[in-house]
């Protein structure tokens, strides 16, 4: 958990703008079963891709504005931001290998 930062409606925009590394935001909620399934996978990825990627979580229950702004209509949704811009969107829970297959091309 230590590597993963919590975002909210107040710090969301600044966090994605200021991040030097590509920032992967996990839109999730307590009541979403598939979100819980991928939480441990994201922790593993944050450790294994340290230095290439930062991961943040955004609870849509408490930060609905950010979710609305990025038209999140389904969770889990993962959005990868580079230089403040969304470059990739992954909807739905996936296995670790398929997540990495989608993310790795955008990481250096």
């Amino acid at each position, binding site marked *: 958990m230590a590597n993963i930062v919590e975002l909210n409606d107040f710090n969301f925009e600044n966090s994605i703008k200021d991040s030097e590394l590509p920032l992967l935001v996990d839109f999730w*909620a307590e009541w*979403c079963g*598939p979100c819980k399934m991928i939480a441990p996978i994201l922790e593993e990825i944050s450790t294994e891709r340290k230095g290439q990627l930062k991961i943040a979580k955004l609870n849509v*229950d408490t930060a609905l504005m950010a979710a609305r702004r990025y*038209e999140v*209509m389904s*969770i889990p*949704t993962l959005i990868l931001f580079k230089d403040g811009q969304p470059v990739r969107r992954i909807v*739905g829970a996936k296995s670790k290998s398929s997540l990495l297959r989608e993310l790795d091309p955008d990481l250096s």
Partner: protein
Amino acid sequence: MKGSPYVTQHKEVVIVGSGPAGLTAAIYTARANLSPVVIEGEPSSTSDQPGGQLMLTTEIENFPGFIDGIMGPELMSNFRSQAERFGASYHTAKVTKIDLSNRPFQIWTSDSNSADPDYTAEAVIISTGARSLMLDLEEEVRLIGHGLSTCATCDGFFFRDLDIAVVGGGDSAMEEAIFLTKFAKSVTIIHRRKELRASKIMQDRAFANPKIHFQWNSVVTKLHGDTQLEGITLTDTTTNQESRLDIKGLFVAIGHVPNTDVFRGQITMDSNGYIVTHDGTHTNVDGVFACGDVQDHTYRQAITAAGSGCMAAIDVERWLEAKHHQAG
């Protein structure tokens, strides 16, 4: 917990699938010291995932022993921990290839081209369950997660004060529609017949809900919207007349299909792909047993799946005992 085993592991029992059936089989076989491994599937937002269909439900009111009900994912997490306590282990992967032609059976999980299987097993319990059918429309892939949803409990929240629809006439459709009225302005249930298939109690609840409307004798034939769902075309099943319904969300609950593709051609199935069992949970392949929704399209309840998982575990135990007896 297992990552990916790079050498072949030999097991007395391998359980494929981790819903109520597979995990009950795991509890029983683990308690019988058979150290089962459960190949539990991969995370997904469909019901084809570790924990199975209950992972996408909210409150389970009819599982005996829980007077006030229990949340589906919590129930499955309890099943899982209970089996683990007795020595079951888990492998988070899907079976990519299986060879049931000789014993020990061979099972691959990652690279199906690899010469060596990940597991060899004396006995296999198949409990891969069933997954929800989709509409089979070409716009479907584009709009999943953008108004079209496979998981009401995950996505209902985003449809606050919007008009949405549920397709289907069974218990799952009623359950989803009722759940979705917590958020939505209105929920239209679209059903291809004039009567519902759902149980009396669920029908009564749906009919009594002022936010629920019904669109009878109708099928969804087109989805509209480029980046977000904006509406659907309905075709009347009696007149073939088309009409448009403007909705922002569509939830599909039109039935199930068994997760048996990987076993095709190796084991007897009925015409819909459900595994055929006899004498309890035996299949036509000696040493292969099946339990839960993968062999049951009639009852399809958590409790019946769990019950048949227990049966499969006992059948396996007796079968292994008889085999060891013969060998000794």
